[in-house]
């Protein structure tokens, strides 16, 4: 290479290197904030079904207050979760965001100083804000005194809606086998009896997204509460009661019985909830185990679907039937936000009755504001009325090891496919539990 060419080439390489370095450094640094005349806040969420309603509310809020609210949607929820975690590490969380997953993760966000403590705001004016929200929805965002997570007690999030998970029944299909649709099965025995008739008519019994294994956990937990009561379930999580206890085996045995009685739709172990929703909406299954969000989903799939919601039929009358429920989606305020007060003001506004009624109507969901239960469809009212029976792992104050939860849920799949007995499963889960407890010590 001639000297001149070499110099040109070197100059070119150096320029390229400088440009690359500049771009890299610029992208690593904090984003340059454009000075805006209009005050604004940024919200990250994952709720693709609520995007339009949120944008409409953002428009209304800007008109009322002059504050611009930028909703940014990141879906699906797994991708959203990773985005929030990555943003936390780089200090680029928005003013308002949501945290998905178990309470231990929420606690980790709080302990790391990413979440603003809303207790003072909630308690202001004799608890005006706090008192208008459903206590069970708020409890999901609350850390009590001496909680096992080591988080300073307080309220760290605002529920914007409420959900619970129940059984749905198809009134037309029940009628077709001679069952009374206004009186759906209330006990386990009733359910098995109705299923026999449905089976004889070639109708699927129960559909649910048990391929997404957390829903198995949900139903099993409902029955665990019904069979042994809350205290014993929590004692098991604390490691004081073994999973090999006869009551737990009774819980696992229900899944064996469901399998043997042909109650479960075929393919349920790998079925995603969307498929289960399609089967139920198309009158191909008599029962579904699903959350209150399904009202909006079924409306989209089959507006003429004739169905109702009920508590899972109880096995024992020793303890009440308990379902999972509480805050559906919650928003948290970023401690490091420059607009903490604007963010809090917006959350107060969005949980006010007019906005909650609007959200409920648009998304067919349950409002978090207890004074907004107006003009709701019948089935949604049924979901709302079951809130008294609702509980949620996030309010139990203790949480099970992820490895145990996985062994529990996957193990129930093994019972359904006939590869494990309830006793074997109980022993397997207990072995995982003991291993995890030993690791912790």
């Amino acid at each position: 290479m001639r000297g001149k060419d070499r110099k040109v080439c070197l100059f070119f390489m150096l320029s390229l290197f400088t440009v690359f370095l500049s771009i890299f450094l610029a992208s690593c640094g904090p984003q340059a904030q454009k000075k805006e005349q209009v005050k604004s806040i940024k919200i990250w969420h994952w709720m693709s079904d609520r995007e339009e309603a949120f944008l409409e509310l953002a428009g209304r809020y800007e008109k009322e207050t002059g504050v611009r609210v930028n909703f940014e949607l990141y879906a699906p929820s797994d991708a959203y979760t990773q985005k929030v975690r990555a943003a936390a590490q780089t200090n680029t969380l928005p003013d308002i965001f949501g945290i998905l997953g178990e309470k231990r993760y929420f606690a980790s966000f709080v302990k790391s100083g990413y979440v603003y403590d809303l207790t003072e705001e909630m308690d202001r004016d004799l608890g005006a804000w706090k008192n208008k929200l459903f206590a069970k929805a708020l409890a999901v965002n609350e850390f009590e005194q001496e909680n096992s997570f080591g988080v300073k007690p307080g309220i760290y999030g605002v529920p914007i809606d409420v959900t619970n998970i129940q059984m749905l029944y198809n009134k037309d299909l029940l009628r077709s086998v001679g069952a009374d649709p206004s009186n759906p099965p209330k006990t386990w025995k009733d359910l098995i009896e109705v299923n026999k008739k449905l089976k004889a008519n070639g109708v699927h019994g129960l559909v649910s997204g048990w391929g997404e294994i957390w829903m198995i956990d949900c139903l099993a937990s409902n029955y665990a509460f019904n069979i042994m009561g809350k205290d014993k379930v929590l004692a098991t999580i604390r490691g004081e009661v073994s999973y090999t206890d006869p009551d737990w085996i009774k819980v696992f045995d229900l899944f064996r019985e469901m399998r043997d009685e042909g109650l479960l739709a075929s393919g349920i172990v790998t079925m995603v909830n969307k498929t289960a929703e399609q089967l139920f909406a198309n009158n191909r299954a008599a029962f579904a185990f699903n959350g209150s969000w399904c009202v909006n989903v079924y409306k989209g799939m089959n507006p003429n679907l004739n169905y109702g919601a009920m508590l899972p039929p109880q096995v024992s009358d020793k303890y009440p039937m308990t379902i999972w429920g509480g805050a559906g989606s919650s928003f948290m305020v970023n401690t490091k936000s420059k607009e903490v007060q604007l963010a809090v003001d917006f959350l107060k506004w969005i949980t006010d009755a007019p906005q909650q009624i609007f959200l409920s109507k648009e998304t067919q969901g349950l409002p978090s504001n207890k004074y907004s239960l107006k003009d709701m469809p019948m089935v949604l009212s049924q979901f709302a009325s079951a809130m008294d029976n609702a509980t949620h792992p996030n309010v139990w104050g203790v949480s099970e090891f992820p490895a145990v939860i996985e062994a529990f849920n996957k193990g129930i799949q093994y019972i359904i496919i006939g590869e494990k007995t309830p006793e074997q499963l109980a022993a397997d889960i207990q072995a995982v539990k003991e291993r995890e407890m030993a690791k912790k010590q």
Partner: protein
Amino acid sequence: MRTKTTLQNYLFVLPAVLIFSIFYIYPFYKVFTLSLCQWDGIARFDFAKNFIGLSNFIELFQDKIWWGAILQAGYITLIALTFQNALALGLALACDRDIKGGNIYRVIFYLPPVLSEVVVGLVWKWIYDGNYGLLNYWLQNIGLSNLVTDWLSNPKTALICVAIIHCWKGFGWGFIIFLAGLQTIPRQLYEPAKVDGASSWQMFKSVTLPLMVPVFILVSILTVLGTMQVFVLILSMTGGGPGYHTEVPVTRILASMVGSSRFGYACSQGIMFGAVLLAVSFVQIKLSKYMKQA
């Protein structure tokens, strides 16, 4: 002058070194560091506080589900190495001849690899569906009702069903590479064999096969590396279920990282998986060298 030239030379390679360091060496270093820690991906990362030594690796060696997932990926790989590549070679041999509409066949055979894995997974999930799937419908129509099953929920059929779709989706790559390899073999080599009265099989065995050894090696290494890392199809078809019957290493890594928030353990799984792949590739290369010499 010499120092200046040396400096200039280093400057030339600096951008490449920088890119390689930032996007390869640093992430690998981070993954290795994390694999020695217990971290949930949320709290501020503090190496000294999170350091747990080799605990993740010790736990990993005892993790039966992890090794089961590796075996299952190995099973799919074995099927891909044999049936998928045999199919690809057979079709490449057929298309290597002067047949009518050869280009159309090439396009058709290359279609599955360019389709999105998620779409392929969901379409086949529908075909395999135990309730309303096409496969069961056809089986019933041709009088094979006894074979009707829940293909993806049945532990006896789930993994093989996924493996078949992986082969269907992947044979196009092998087909194209084999075809390219076949077309580099000079036609003149076949002429003397033909004159000597060699059969098609003899020509294949004595001419095609030895010359295709480097291509076989390439295809087999790509097949092993590609198949062991299969996961999109699994996620869209079975989610790893029923139970752990279709779990593969990447779905386990995902479960550790996203499901359990055990970033350190997930990183140790990643390193272990990388080591397994490296070992398999090393054995393959050694074997292929031996084959070449033979």
